[in-house]
């Protein structure tokens, strides 16, 4: 007959976690294995989810060991997994619109019921109790850039129009700025030695 121990967390401000064992000895016959089984209790900080709500809090699930157990959040954000054997386990929170980093949960076999939780990613950091909060909100959509004239001008069509405008208004100015004498000489030189393009054009007309 296995013994089920129910650890209760003492949420102190320190990183070290104290686990007080509650003397709640419950005879369990549901588990055929001879190992000791424990309960893992935790909480999702609901205050950190108030920003926007794509999904409801009621739809948040906590997944244990990649789907071995699935738990839902109570209205206060707490959840519990029972019948957990000692060892290292993985805990994931699935909440639409938020990213919760995966958490490893070590259930000690030597010190019955002692539980340590830490983030899997990044530097090892012990969590105060098993209080989970999202790392960031997730926006699944690209944000449409607000309309701006600069943006329009930067687009290929805008560039094309811009270039045309330059051609139309600036090039004549450029022509004007050339010295008339110089211009005349140039034109004469062209007449004397017509370029193939000009010849071609003249031939057509």
């Amino acid at each position: 007959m296995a013994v089920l121990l129910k650890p209760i967390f003492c949420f102190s401000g320190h990183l070290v976690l104290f686990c007080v064992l509650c003397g709640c000895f419950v005879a369990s016959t549901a588990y055929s294995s001879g190992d000791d089984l424990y309960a893992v209790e935790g909480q999702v900080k609901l205050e950190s989810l108030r920003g926007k709500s794509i999904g409801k809090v009621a739809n948040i699930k906590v997944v244990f060991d990649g789907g071995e157990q699935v738990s839902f959040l109570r209205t206060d954000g707490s959840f519990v997994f029972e019948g957990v054997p000692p060892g290292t386990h993985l805990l994931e929170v699935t909440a639409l619109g938020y990213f919760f980093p995966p958490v490893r949960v070590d259930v000690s076999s030597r010190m019955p019921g002692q539980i340590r939780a830490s983030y899997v990613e990044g530097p090892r950091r012990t969590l105060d109790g098993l209080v989970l909060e999202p790392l960031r909100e997730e926006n699944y959509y690209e944000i449409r850039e607000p309309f701006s004239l600069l943006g329009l001008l930067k687009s290929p069509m805008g560039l094309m129009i811009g270039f045309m405008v330059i051609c139309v208004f600036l090039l004549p100015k450029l022509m004007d700025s050339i010295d008339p004498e110089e211009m005349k000489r140039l034109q004469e030189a062209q007449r004397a030695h017509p370029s193939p393009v000009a010849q071609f054009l003249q031939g057509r007309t």
Partner: protein
Amino acid sequence: MASPRLRASLCQLFVVVACLSSTCLALYEDQVGVRDWHQQYIGRVKHAVFQTQGTGRKRVVVATEQNAIASLNLRTGDIYWRHVLGETDNIDALEISMGKYVLTLSKGNTVRAWHLPDGALIWETRIQAFQGFNLGLIKLPVDIDGDKVNDLFVYSGSILTAISGADGATLWRVDAAGSKNIFIEKVVLAPEEGKAYGLGFFGIMGVALVEIDLKTGDLSDLKSAELSSMLSTEHLHVTSDYAVALQSDAESLVVALINSHKELIVVETPVSSILTNPGTSLKLLSTNLEGVISLSSDDQTVILKVDPTTGKLSLVERLTGAVAVSDSLSVLDDKYATAIVEFSEEGSAQNVFNLRVKGNDFSDEVQKETVKLPSHRGFIQKAFLNAYVRTDRSHGFRALVVGEDDSLSLLQQGEVVWTREDGLASIVDASPAELPLEKDGVSVAEVEHDLAEWLKGHIMKMKATLFLATPDELAAVQRARLNQADKTKHTRDHNGFRKLLVVLTKAGKISALHTGDGHVVWSLLVPSLRASYGNPRFSPLKIFQWQVPHQHALDENPVVLILAQADPGYDVKGALSWIDVHKGTELQSVKLSYSVTQVVTTPVTDSSEQRLHLLIDNRKRAHLFPATEESLALFLKYKENAYFYEVDKADQKMHGYGLLDLVDPSTGNIKEGYVFESRKLWSIVFPAETESITTVVTRKSDEVTHTQTKVLSNRDILFKYLNKNLVFVATVAPKDKSQVGAVSPEEKTLVVYLVDTVTGRILHRVSHPNMQGPVHAVLSENWVVYHYFNLRQHRYEMSVLEIYDQSRLPDKGVIQLMLGQHNSSVPISSYSPVNLEVKQQSYFFTFTVKTMTVTSTAKGITAKQLLLGTVNDQVLALDKRLFDPRRTLTPTPAEQEEGILPLTDSIPISPQSYLTHSYQVEGLRGLLTIPARLESTSLVFAYGLDLFYTHTAPSKIYDSLTEDFSYALLLVTIVVLFLSIIVTYVLSERRELAEKWK
């Protein structure tokens, strides 16, 4: 909060994400629903409780075999809320208490209370239970702990538990088997306050009654009755007046009457005295009936009336054929109603059912209606009755019925009020199919018929992009893009976006969904797979594309082949069924006398484009289909190249086989295919004590590869090793092979192999110490990506293997090239010597993965995306560039030019790369990718409890204008240009004139 190191790594991730976002095609919020659709289902309903009293919205709360609990709108069938419990969390009982709590008992030991209006979990508690015994949940009319919330009572085997309705605390618990040796089957509330009676088996030879004090849980006043023979402990039918059990030899029925002194009086009645023809498989049905009991035998259901004073049994009804009997519904104080839904006649497209509502002890018929249901719903298998008060104060009845195809329908006043296609929650396999070609005669001019209308639409669109439109106009634009008329047409389109998704469900129903909006084009409950008396039920396994008409057989309709497996214990082991995909009819079916272990799809097709398939049976013989002379002749030419392999997970072996000669067709049944003997060519024996096969992955058979080379930035060439017979095998340490956690990392090793299935050669082997499964893998072109768990770091990892063929390196011999002896033009053979270079790299990955696949495009030119079904039930699209073994920490400019990303220790995930955006595909099981005709686009269909469909373009849409391309802006630009040309022409003319006047 984040440490500098974390921040630095986040920054690095950001750089990679920024690099990627230029190629990733993310979705704008207003594009939701343009290309994608999402459908929510709940599965086959097994419990239903109505909530129709009071002023609130009328609902029905249901629990399903797919472990979902849902609250449905009784008027429309829409889902108010839904929760899907864990995979092993089967729901045993469902109740509604005090009009606002939904109580569930699942896994036999977990009781949860949900808030009825919004589905929030109020409390959750574990109780003790004896697994595998009768389970029940009873809401008590009393409040034991005095907190003004009615408490509840759970019996699970012999353990009785009272639970506080307010917080789930255990109030008391007794073990009836331990203290009184009674295995309680049912608890009946006594008319007196605070008392209940538990009835159950007393050993295997008796029935017992015990009084339960609800306040304290004291068991008292045990009354038992011994019987002369053993009882069938399957079911004990209990009401407040009597209990009925069947003897284990099914010879007689035992009625234990409860008299006014709460004593048991046993009356045995031989079955033969009531039933003239009792049949062979008599069973007491576990329905909650009042005044009567129901028995099933062979293909009939018998309803017997029980006299509560004498215990005499008499026949009330003998129902033959498909019948569903609901539980008895308490209408008024001691009035009960029970519904019987009988199949009456088969129409051409609709089946007619009789819905009869019987009053107390079945003597009177309260209501009788005929209802027509489409024939693809099959027979009605379950019925739940609900009463409502008509305007004339009389009672009317509505019934919620579950069809043979797992659909859920509400019947009222002889009409089907609504139907939910919940069979689609259990898709077994899916396959794409082409729609018919557009016929010349059919007018297609409905779309964009009016130029003015078209222009108006585009001008509105332009206004919207310029943020000039009013909200009304914006809504109109959005409506127009969501309801594009051509999206849902039943013909092929130019881009190949419109297709049929042929899905096969667990119930043996095949449906075709339109990719445009996901509507069901046709459905068929495959006739040859239906269970009938004396025949087995077939569970469908897979769909194969039998006939994909193109080229010369364009007039033929596409056909799919369904493979199904028969229930064990029959001579028939399996069945094949051919379905016409355009008409939705069964063309042909064959019952097989052998069980099929695998199906080999050959590359050979016959003159009508039917693909040749080999069915391998458990004796390793191959059966050729189609069983025609023509296909046999074709196959005999191909036979030398036909190989197959088998993975024996039980013995940790792999075997390869080649085909031998044809077995004389006259000895067997030609209908079951031409038989070929096979011989074993090779075996691979994995060390069973250290390795156990967990995942075997092959390339998709229809994958197209564009090029066999990869050109590097320094103009060197790498030759991809493109072997169609490559298979990826992953083995993990034997015990706890699919469990994450709870194991010490030391002795766990993941070993992956690349095996050529023709020669049995192990081409490559990688050993990953301290890793374990579950392993998910994708094999495509010359690479494999796989996902597994790192026990030392305690997080997931993904690895990529890229295989290059060194023996094909160009030797730059011009003469050889001219003589055609260049080794790059030699066809690849499994038997030729190989000199492989396998590049490998591993990365950390954040999530648990449920399923994995890769995009496929028409010509294989477009880059690939890996699609991962994450634990969040979302589909994540990751660029293959992230899984490139040539990534380095600081890529050189040449490598950057090639598109190689800087190496990061984990795969960055940007929220915009979720294909499912803000949807979840609850219970995600499978992903199907289909190439569109447009090379840039791949169609993605994700199925689980929900269905989701979308498009993805791994390298952006480079071959067509995007949907939000502004034609109006283009038009305006042209007009402006034209006008400016005229204006400048006039201006220059004038100027020239002025010049000339000078």
